[in-house]
């Protein structure tokens, strides 16, 4: 029997997630049966219905149980990596299940001064980062050492060479509001809709943009999807601070936080240590 090594599985899962697919693997980490620990089986899903099975746990019945667990995890929007127990023919198997979700993408439109820290923070957060500009001197490797992709594109058709999908997070920070607007319209017309569309701009600019969108017949539902002014309210002023505010918003959307200071949410001092507190108990 040809085993699938830890290296093989790691490579398979990483490559699948990087190319927009998802993958799950189980490894036997404990068993009442001797000599089976360390065996692996993996499921990859490259496209809608393209499922691949790799490796094996040593018996068809055990493989079937492992595949069931992996499919359940992959079918759910969220799953918890960790231990699962399977009992089969009087034997007990402890499996460690892990899942890789498709890598999320951040597309920074405009390669100016906000784009630089944004690409950096986006990369730190695990996004596959694309930086796009119409000026070849701006979207350069020197300026964006940790971007995954640097693209030269015309702002009238910015996403021609970038396939957009439900894992795309688009941040519009071009050098001019007209370009931001052109790109915004393209992003809004994308189907399926991207996960996030953020646009830089003051309250006044954003209002002007929305007026124009309404004039052009865009529905309020569509306009509501635009994150503008962009980012969480942390008083950001510098490009670096703005990048942090946007990054915080991206994390909040993915993880489902409130965006409020935890101090105020938890109120530990007030709740547990203040004698005048009303909800002491």
């Amino acid at each position, binding site marked *: *029997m040809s085993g*699938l090594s830890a*290296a093989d599985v790691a*490579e398979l899962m990483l490559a699948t997630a990087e190319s927009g697919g998802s993958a799950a693997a189980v490894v036997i980490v404990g068993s009442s049966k001797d000599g089976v620990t360390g065996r692996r089986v993996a499921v990859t899903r490259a496209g809608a219905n393209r499922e691949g099975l790799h490796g094996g746990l040593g018996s068809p019945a055990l493989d079937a149980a492992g595949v069931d667990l992996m499919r359940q995890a992959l079918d759910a929007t969220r799953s918890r990596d960790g231990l699962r127990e399977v009992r089969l023919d009087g034997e007990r198997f402890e499996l460690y299940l892990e899942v890789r979700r498709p890598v999320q993408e951040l597309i920074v439109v405009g390669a100016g001064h906000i784009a630089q820290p944004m690409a950096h923070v986006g990369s730190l*957060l*695990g996004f596959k980062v694309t930086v796009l500009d119409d000026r070849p001197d701006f979207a350069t490797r020197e300026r964006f050492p940790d971007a995954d992709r640097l693209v030269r594109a015309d702002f009238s058709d910015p996403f021609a060479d970038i396939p957009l999908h439900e894992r795309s997070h688009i941040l519009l920070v071009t050098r001019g509001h007209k370009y931001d607007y052109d790109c915004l319209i393209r992003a809004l017309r994308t189907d399926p809709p991207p996960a996030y569309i953020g646009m830089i701009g003051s309250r006044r600019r954003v209002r002007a943009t929305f007026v124009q969108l309404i004039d052009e017949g865009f529905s309020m539902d569509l306009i509501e999807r635009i994150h503008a002014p962009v980012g969480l309210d942390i008083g950001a002023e510098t490009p670096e601070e703005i990048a942090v505010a946007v990054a915080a918003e991206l994390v909040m959307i993915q993880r489902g936080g409130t965006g409020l200071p935890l101090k105020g949410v938890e109120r530990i001092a007030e709740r547990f240590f203040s004698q005048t507190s009303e909800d002491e108990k």
Partner: protein
Amino acid sequence: MTREDDRTLTEALAEARDAGRRCVLATIVETKGSTPRKVGARMLVDPTRGLVGTVGGGCGEAEVIESAHRVLASGIPERVRVDLTDDLLSWSPAVCGGIMDVFVEPVSPTAATEDRK
């Protein structure tokens, strides 16, 4: 585990495999309470390269490295239960108030574990 950690560890695993080196992989498979690293964090113990990745550092990681050396010699996987609950107020970097369960397995360049057993 971040995308960057995943890439670094995967590259290290593949490099060891391609060079024909036997290594040991440690994976946190369960945690209870507060631990420095969460489920899925991995560390590769490569006799040539040293350590790649981390399962949390400090005393807990030392226990895992000890186990890794046994596993490298024996070829038999182990489970290490690392208890970090000793003293929550000692402020030691390794004390986080949690327990973690680590799977420590030999990684052979050619075949899966069962073939050696």
